[in-house]
């Protein structure tokens, strides 16, 4: 089922003194989540992504705007009538019930004409347990499970009532690094298998990029950019999005456009047709650096970290905002460790110019679309 957010706004009354302004958690969020897709809500903590999830779920009521599931307006519908499955950050598995009882719990709530027979309930529980591969754990209690297993049980409990929408709040934050990789594949697989429209919240950009069909980048309650992960990575609309996506993070410089050329300090780095003379922020992805003797960007080498497949070159440049700039270079290049200066050429599609004030991305030569 598609989910439509129409100018969704949520403000919380400020606590304490009366004259302070209300806190705007989510500001005018409009977006249509297509049916059967996996959507990642991404942003730093406090950006309003969890509030958005809670509003879709029905645990919070928007202060403005409308919310639709398909064609049905669910804005005023309480959570239990929306038919959503929710996986909480700490899983919220009932500790005194076994895995089976936990999964059966939502089914046992059904009343009246929706009431299921015992056999049907057990069968449904078995099916969903098979889907997330926890069949052999059915008689254990949550405390006897590992974090990853608890996660699966929580997903099973959310799926057992065949929800039209599945919501996951920071689903991987409580898992260790290895399990995180495995579980995110798992979530992707389960979502594909069931075809349920799924929205999940995360502050980890890698997590969002790796499994989402679409990502929504938020900041201070305002949606920054919506798009396919690769699109957003390749064409960030502003400096914030550029900085938020990517590991290692993008390198930011203070630059100047003069005579259709971008200058980083003394170095003419790039031809910038169509951009008039001005000061700009410049972002260069770590993989955008090419090692060239005659490259225009002159940096001072500080360290080389060999990582096997490629190496990470740490250097400094007077125009860089950060104390060091990090570039990823294929490891078949040879760098003399005692060489001081290092010269880079820049891949044009890995460098972005942002307006000095608004921080909005400036299209270079009309080649950058957005």
């Amino acid at each position, binding site marked *: 089922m598609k989910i439509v957010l129409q100018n969704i706004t949520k403000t919380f009354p400020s606590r304490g003194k009366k004259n302070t302004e209300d806190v705007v958690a989510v500001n005018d969020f409009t977006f249509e989540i297509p049916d059967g897709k996996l959507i990642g809500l991404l942003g730093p903590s406090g950006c309003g992504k969890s509030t958005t999830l809670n509003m879709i*779920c*029905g*645990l919070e009521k928007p202060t403005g705007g409308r919310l639709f599931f398909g064609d049905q307006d669910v804005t005023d519908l*309480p*959570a*239990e*009538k929306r038919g*959503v*499955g*929710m996986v*909480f*950050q*700490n899983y*919220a598995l*009932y*500790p*005194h019930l076994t895995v089976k009882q936990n999964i059966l*719990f*939502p089914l046992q*709530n*059904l*009343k009246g004409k929706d009431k299921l027979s015992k056999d049907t309930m057990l069968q449904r529980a078995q099916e969903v347990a098979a889907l997330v591969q926890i069949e052999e754990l059915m008689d254990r209690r949550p405390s006897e499970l590992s974090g990853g297993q608890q996660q699966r049980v929580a997903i099973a*409990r959310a799926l057992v*009532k065949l929800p039209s929408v599945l919501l996951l709040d920071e689903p991987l934050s409580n898992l260790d690094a290895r399990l995180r990789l495995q579980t995110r594949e798992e979530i992707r697989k389960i979502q594909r298998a069931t075809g349920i429209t799924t929205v999940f919240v995360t502050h980890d950009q890698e997590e969002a990029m790796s499994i989402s069909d679409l990502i929504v980048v938020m900041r201070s309650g305002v949606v920054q950019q919506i798009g396919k992960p690769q699109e957003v990575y390749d064409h960030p609309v502003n400096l914030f999005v550029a900085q938020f996506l990517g590991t290692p993070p993008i390198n930011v410089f203070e630059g100047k456009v003069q005579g259709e050329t971008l200058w980083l300090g003394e170095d003419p780095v790039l031809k910038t047709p169509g951009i008039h003379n001005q000061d700009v922020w410049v972002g260069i992805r770590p993989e955008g650096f090419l090692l060239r003797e005659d490259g225009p960007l002159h940096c001072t080498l500080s360290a080389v970290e060999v990582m096997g497949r490629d190496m990470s070159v740490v250097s400094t440049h007077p125009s860089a905002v950060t104390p060091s700039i990090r570039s990823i270079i294929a490891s078949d290049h040879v760098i003399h460790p005692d060489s001081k200066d290092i010269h880079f050429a820049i891949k044009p599609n890995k460098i972005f110019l942002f307006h000095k004030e608004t921080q909005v991305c400036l299209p270079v030569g009309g080649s950058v679309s957005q």
Partner: protein
Amino acid sequence: MKNNKKAWLYLLPALLFLGVFMIYPLIDVFIYSFEEGYNFASQTKFGTGLYNYSYVLHDPYFLQAIQNTFILAAITVPISTGLSLLIAVGLSKIKPLRQLYQTVYFLPYVTNTLAVGLVFMVLFQTTEYSDGLVNLLINWFGGSSVDFIDGPYWAKMLVLCLYTIWIVMPFKILILTSALASVNEEYYKAAKVDGTSALRTFTKITLPMISPMIFYLVITGCIGAFKAYSDAVALFGTDLNAAGMNTIVGYVYDMLYGDSGGYPSYASAAAIILFVIVLTITCINLLVSRRHVHH
């Protein structure tokens, strides 16, 4: 081994204190209970055997005390725990003025027992001028006055139970309120998303979550009820045997110091019987809780 010695050294003050004031008296009481006609002053006895137990168990006053104590425990423990749970749930649901209500409900705990006794006097005692507030109410609805302090057994027991419940409730409310507050909010959110009814949320989530605390309150409540004494004195005066409202601890006390006092052997036997009763009930509680309490 050296560390071990040090550990014992550190434990010594506490052990000495416990030994002198807890363990030695316990053993002593156990020994007295088998020594017939023991006399503190002359340190003499007639003989050794089970006579003390036989005497106590045939003493109508003791049997009355046992009956009173059992009735008191059976009535006050479930009612006070249940009411406290109800009030604690209510308190946790109220948003405005919650702090104020929590304070108000805790006040009786820090109020002087005598002050509470005084209030109960106003409520129940018959004086030259009135029959007490409760009788006033009974008269209002067309009933005739009941003497709650010197009257029929059930009336006196009612007052004693009410008094006990009133005294023990603040502590239980406090414990349960904090137990309720410690249940993670996420469980309730999960239950809400799954469309769980309020009743089912309470019985299937809240109750199991706070069951260790309820169990703790039932055990301490039982032990407290079996040790009841001062409440009865506050209401019916020191001659509890005459009032027919004695408790086991009251009987022990009377045997030691009361008008019929000076019988440490009987007192010891009664104390050991009380000990066995409390131990048995606590064991039963533990067995029951194995099945129903989720830790």
